């Protein structure tokens, strides 16, 4: 059975962290059991479950005498490169150094990998413990626990159990959108992307070329802000409307990334939260609590109806229609017409 990946990564990390001089690829290969097994002649297939790539003999580095098939070398090289990438994802700084003989060596220097001194008291530790468990997305949940574990190893106090101290409060950051992870990485690494996007009212998705800036979660939904290359303008996208895969594109950003990206304001105005006008409505007594909560002025008419002045922003017509016969729009005429229009559509339905 092939040796578990975690064991292999752990050994590579310990070797690179424990050495004072750069270790060559050959030294690492000969020191770590998982690599020894991977290059053992005739054993190539055993280390590639799920790898899918065909081994093409003779296509890799020169065959070293007595070192088995070239295919083993190839598969070792691929494995080694992937492992280094994985360790770098974990935060390890691995240096590549060439020695006097021109041989490449690797090491993880203690200076560049050490956590700077950090002292947190019990209250601060408990607060971070609460924050570390809010992610409902595997990659970020794993990363947040990993951060806490590193701090724990560095002496973060344990007196207060972070999972019990705040029993009453359970904030959760939901992430249901498949596009989240690739977009998060693209924002992090500043890589242009292309994805199919279906606008709220469009039947078919269309490809959009975007330079992603930032992701924001508002009211439980994720939004992406970025530069839309097709429209040459800043745009906000809702992640749940991205269909299919997010693909990254090579090359640099063509537009400057603003210092402050304002996703929430844009979304709030779609949601009708920014009202620049007001409307006058009649509302049946006792009905429409949320309309009352937003009302600037309420006047009791005394005949089972009240008169309310409410903010008039995008989408108010659709909202008012929800209250059916309990709401009558008085003004402006434009809103009144929109509401009547909507009611007629339902009445004919």
């Amino acid at each position, binding site marked *: 059975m092939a040796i578990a990946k975690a064991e292999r990564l752990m050994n590579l990390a310990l070797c690179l962290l424990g050495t004072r001089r750069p270790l060559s690829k050959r030294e690492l290969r000969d020191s770590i059991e998982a690599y020894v097994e991977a290059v053992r002649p005739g054993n190539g297939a055993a280390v590639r479950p799920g790898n899918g790539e065909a081994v093409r003999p003779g296509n890799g580095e020169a065959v070293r005498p007595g070192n088995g098939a070239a295919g083993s070398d190839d598969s070792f090289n691929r494995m080694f490169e992937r492992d280094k990438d994985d360790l770098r994802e974990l935060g390890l700084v691995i240096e590549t150094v060439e020695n006097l003989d021109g041989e490449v060596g690797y090491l993880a220097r203690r200076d560049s990998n050490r956590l700077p001194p950090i002292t947190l008291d019990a209250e601060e530790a408990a607060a971070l413990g609460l924050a570390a468990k809010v992610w409902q997305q595997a990659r970020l949940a794993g*990363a947040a626990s990993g951060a806490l574990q*590193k701090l724990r190893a560095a002496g973060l106090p344990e007196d207060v159990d972070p*999972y019990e101290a705040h029993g*009453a409060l359970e904030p*959760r950051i939901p992430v249901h959108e498949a596009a989240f992870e690739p977009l998060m990485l693209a924002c992090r690494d500043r890589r242009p992307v292309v994805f199919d996007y279906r606008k709220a009212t469009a039947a078919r998705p269309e490809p959009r070329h975007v330079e992603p*800036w930032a*992701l*924001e979660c508002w009211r439980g*939904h994720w939004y992406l802000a970025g530069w839309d290359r097709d429209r040459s303008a800043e745009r906000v996208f809702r992640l749940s409307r991205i269909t299919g895969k997010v693909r990254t594109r090579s090359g640099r950003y063509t537009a400057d990334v603003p210092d402050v990206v304002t996703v929430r304001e844009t979304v709030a105005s779609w949601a009708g939260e920014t009202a620049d006008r007001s409307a006058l409505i009649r509302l049946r007594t006792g009905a429409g609590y949320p309309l009352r909560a937003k009302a600037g002025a309420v006047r009791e008419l005394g005949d089972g109806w009240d008169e309310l002045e409410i903010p008039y922003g995008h989408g108010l017509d659709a909202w008012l229609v929800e209250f059916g016969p309990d709401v009558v729009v008085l003004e402006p005429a434009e809103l009144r017409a929109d509401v009547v229009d909507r009611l007629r*559509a339902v009445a004919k339905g």
Partner: protein
Amino acid sequence: MAGKPVRPTNAIDQTRRMLSLVTYLRERPGARVEDVARAFGITEDELVSDLDVLPMCGTSFRGGDLLDIDTDGERIWWHNPAALGAEAAEPLRLAADEATALLVAARAVSTLPGLREGDRQALLRATAKVEAAAGEQAGASSRLSVTFESEGGVFADVDRAISERRRLWIRYYSPARDEVTEREIDPIRLVSVGHTYVEAWCRRSEARRTFRLDRVAEIRILDEPSAPPEVELRDLSEGLVQPAAEDPEVVVEVGPGGRWVAEYYPHDSADELPDGGLRISLRTPDPTSLRRLALRLGRDGRIVSPPELADSARRAAREALAAYDGVEAQGASGAHRVHDGQYGRQEQEL
């Protein structure tokens, strides 16, 4: 702990954890399995599986200096801590993703309006220290942000009632019935998933209920003690609304302009229609609550079944139209007459 997401074993996460474990264990000979698992936020089984891997690891396979770590199930012993040089056992710097995950979450939690002030101050201090320790790795965390929504005053009262174990009186708005009702509730916990909710035992319905804080019209902390029955906490990672299989089915057909329904309502199925719309099938314990949806959709969609629900939306729209001036009211009553007679056929033609 209840509600804690179960993560599948992942080689990256396990490696990350084991690297911190060796640093941690080196300082604590004879550490208890239970304590270490809690400190690392993992189950004892997860910890034991790490302890199975560690004896296969070391700085060099050939040198015979594998980590000699074992456990009797209760305590963990490391017989050759010198196998790992001091430099290899130092706490590791945070990775960019780790800094991002922790900092974004910490900033989000610190904006929760109802957070106790002492906790908020502690979190802000901790955030600043982590930012400093993460150095340049903290930079990417500005590219993600999360806002929790909650009503400050209501949140603080619910939070206090939970910690003091007291009953609450609330006036609560139910959008399904467009009415505000008074009830006494025994709060169990606060949950923020987009909006903030209190899960409670409702004394009016003698059942567990979830209340959205922005729908609490009024709140008072009562003197009576809160005594919710022992209930198993649900895992809310799949969302708060979990319709039951026995709930009645509602079928809605929407045009392209009504596709948002599939984003907002948990549903069993959403099939594409030739015009770019969707046929959505969902369940709800109380179909009449969807009359609002039918009214809102207007020409962007309609209820297909149950027919009583479609009827009630039509009736409500006609009644509403009657309140507008002469011409409109006439038009509405005209439509009323025609459709009453032709309802069945009309349905077929659509």
